[in-house]
């Protein structure tokens, strides 16, 4: 009896000690420790116990589990991160991790589902929770707004900055800002006005029949552009904008010497 009791007590003590030891090892090797390292440090520890301790630390959120080419790595999680997720359960933490790993490019919800292996309804519920806690943000993006990584080659950058008229039409419909149902032709008319405003340019590419939005084997691509020149020098003077420019002569009633617009402009 006492043997059994003793064993259990040592087991309990051991667990706490082992936990602390593992934490110390993690701090010593901030890049992460492998199973092998823990085994070398505490050779008397049984694998099951080791696994139990590690699981406990993981569930407490004090340890991070990573995989590298040679096996599993355990790393100390910084306390700030741990604090943020207090009160969330494991699934939420997992989803958050997945989103965090995607970096600043963002990730589609479908991809979150694949990576976390959770059913769609669960994922949606978790996303809503995280959003209400203000930990993540949903960015509805059309292809044209996809974040452009400046290290990508210019060709990819340019191609990703285009949006087809079909995509724009879908986006506007989804936003629901229009009370009237807009067809793709209406959207194209509006895009043409933007071309005439000098804000957008269009190019036409050949597309296979049947792909969404192709008309007669062509697709129209639009993208935003910057102005080619700054406002020209002439319009920075009052004369360039003057409504009575034609009537202005020296010695006349309207003359540069007594021009009211010039006086205002000079005193500005």
């Amino acid at each position, binding site marked *: 009896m006492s043997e059994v009791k003793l064993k259990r007590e040592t087991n309990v003590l051991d667990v706490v000690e082992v936990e602390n030891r593992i934490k110390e090892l993690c701090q010593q090797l901030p890049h992460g420790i492998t199973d092998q390292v823990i085994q070398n440090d505490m050779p008397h520890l049984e694998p099951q116990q080791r696994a139990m301790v590690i699981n406990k630390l993981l569930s407490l959120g004090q340890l991070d589990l990573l995989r590298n080419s040679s096996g599993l790595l355990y790393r100390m999680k910084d306390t700030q991160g741990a604090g943020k997720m207090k009160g969330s359960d494991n699934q939420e933490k997992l989803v958050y991790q997945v989103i965090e790993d995607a970096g600043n490019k963002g990730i589609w919800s479908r991809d979150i589902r694949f990576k976390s292996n959770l059913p769609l309804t669960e994922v949606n519920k978790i996303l809503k929770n995280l959003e209400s806690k203000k930990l993540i943000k949903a960015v509805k993006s059309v292809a044209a707004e996809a974040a452009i990584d400046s290290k990508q080659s210019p060709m990819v950058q340019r191609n990703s900055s285009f949006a087809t008229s079909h995509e724009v039409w879908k986006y506007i419909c989804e936003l629901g800002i229009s009370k009237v149902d807009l067809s793709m032709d209406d959207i194209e008319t509006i895009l043409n006005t933007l071309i005439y405003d000098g804000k957008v340019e269009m190019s036409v590419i050949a597309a296979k029949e049947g792909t969404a939005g192709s008309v007669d084997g062509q697709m129209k691509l639009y993208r935003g552009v910057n102005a080619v020149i700054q406002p*020209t020098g002439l319009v920075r003077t009052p004369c360039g904008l003057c409504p009575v420019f034609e009537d202005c002569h020296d010695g006349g009633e309207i003359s540069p010497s007594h021009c009211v617009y010039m006086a205002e402009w*000079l005193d500005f």
Partner: protein
Amino acid sequence: MTAQEVRLCGLLLREHFGEVVEKVGTHLLRGGAQNLRIIIHETGVPLDLVKKSLCVLVQHGACVFSSGRKGAGSPTEYRTSCDRILRILRYPRYIYTTKTLYGDTGELIIEELLQRGHMTMSSTVKTVADRLTQNMEGQYLSVCINQGLSKLFSLFLKVFLVLRFLFFVEIEYDKETAAVLIPPFLLEGLCMDYGEVSNAFSKLVETHFLQRCPPMVAAGAAASAAPATPATPGTPAAPVSTAPPSPESFPDCYKVPHMTLVGRGKRQLCSEDGEDQRNAKRAKMDSQAHGDEGICWQVNFERFHLHFRDQAIISAVANKLDQTSSEIVRTMLRMSEVTTSPTATCTKPLSANEIFRSLPPSYNIARPIVDQYLTLLVDDPMEFVGKAGESGGGMYVVNLHRALANLARATLESVVQERFGSRSARIFRLLLRKRHLEQKQVEDFAMIPAKEAKDMLYTLLAQNLVQLQEIPKTPDFAPSRTFYLYTVNQLPTARMLLQNCYKTVANLIERRLFESRENKRLLEKSQRIEAILASLQASGAEPEQLTEVEEMITATEKQQLEALRLHINKLDSAENQVDESIFLLESYINSTASTS
């Protein structure tokens, strides 16, 4: 010569050369080719003044002379053209460009040549070296005085300056005179060597920013007479022609003459002893031959214009695409600088290999990325760069004329936008793209309500930015049976805007002169007070005296002066800004003229 051009030329001539030259110049501009007698008779200016004005104009290349139209033996006729005089507006831009490219030495060389018109290389080098030396001295002196290095020196200065002040002469702080009093040995190291200036001069000639003046053909010479000066074998056979020979038609246009010029910049005035000795020495110096007599140099404006055009294209590419694309275009233009003629439609084809090798080393771009950038530039709707073949990894050209046309179009659109609003600008761009449209179509495409669209179209029509084209259905042009199509013609609109630019610059100059005239009394008073202050300060007056003098200007007057200074600066910089528009529009119009 339009009325606006003549008015602007008159104002520029008056500011730079005085009223007499203005009178003679504008008369020539209005009247075409005239001989001396007619000029004297019609302007009423005395003979010697007319001769001097004509000399000034010829010296600056604004006036050319040729033998009379009535055959040999008739008096020489003088002709001016607006172009050269309008260049005066652009002088600050030329000087600033040279400063950025070649530093202070280059800047001063160009400034001297612009002021004098034609000069030999030796005299330019000497003058510029002297100026640079004085600048260095001036800096050294101001350091000395601020530190109060020599009491004796300041005493001399006080006596000298008070004496000058007593005669109410406008006093600039006369550093040159003060140099007398500084021990010469302190100033020995502060001289500009002629060699350095000559180097800068040669560099400017190599890159074609300076050129030789074409040798003068004696007026009235028989057709068979050879040109007078040497170094031009194989000149075209007819020296008596209506158009003056261009400097480029002479093969030695850009050859630096062999010149013996050794020495350093001279300090003004005398550390030498004795007036007479000094004069004698100076006379000897001047008559020393340096081996380049008769070879005068002038600024090559066309080369500067090509440089400005390249800059405009590069900044347009940078605005539209990104920095790397503009660097590639800059490299392409740099490589084509001397191989492309000024009126070419596009540069000579350059292979992608060459472009990649010539990129600046600080740009670590891999070869395939450069190829991708070139493809992007070719695909861009603005068509800055075109592809001319596949050899050498792809042959690429810069489409100069198309780029100028795009820049001119952007200028026109910007004017319409700022003046009439963005919806009128939308209509304007729509018409530029679609050429001819009916009113109904304009409303539909631009998505502007009918009433407003009509209003805007009529306003644009009244300002002559948009034209109406009538296409009759029946021979009698009945209004109900005619199509009325709105259209925009880019070239005539550009010409019209160019005239507006000229008028605007003339207005700005007039306003500037008016403001100076209005406040003339105030300006003179402030100058006098500044002079008194300067002299008192140099002689070490007590602070009470200084404040007493300062209080001679009241606070309101100070405010007025400050406002006046701001106004004049604003008007000056506005002139330069409008000149940029003028440059773009002129280049575009000239490019269409050469191709048509």
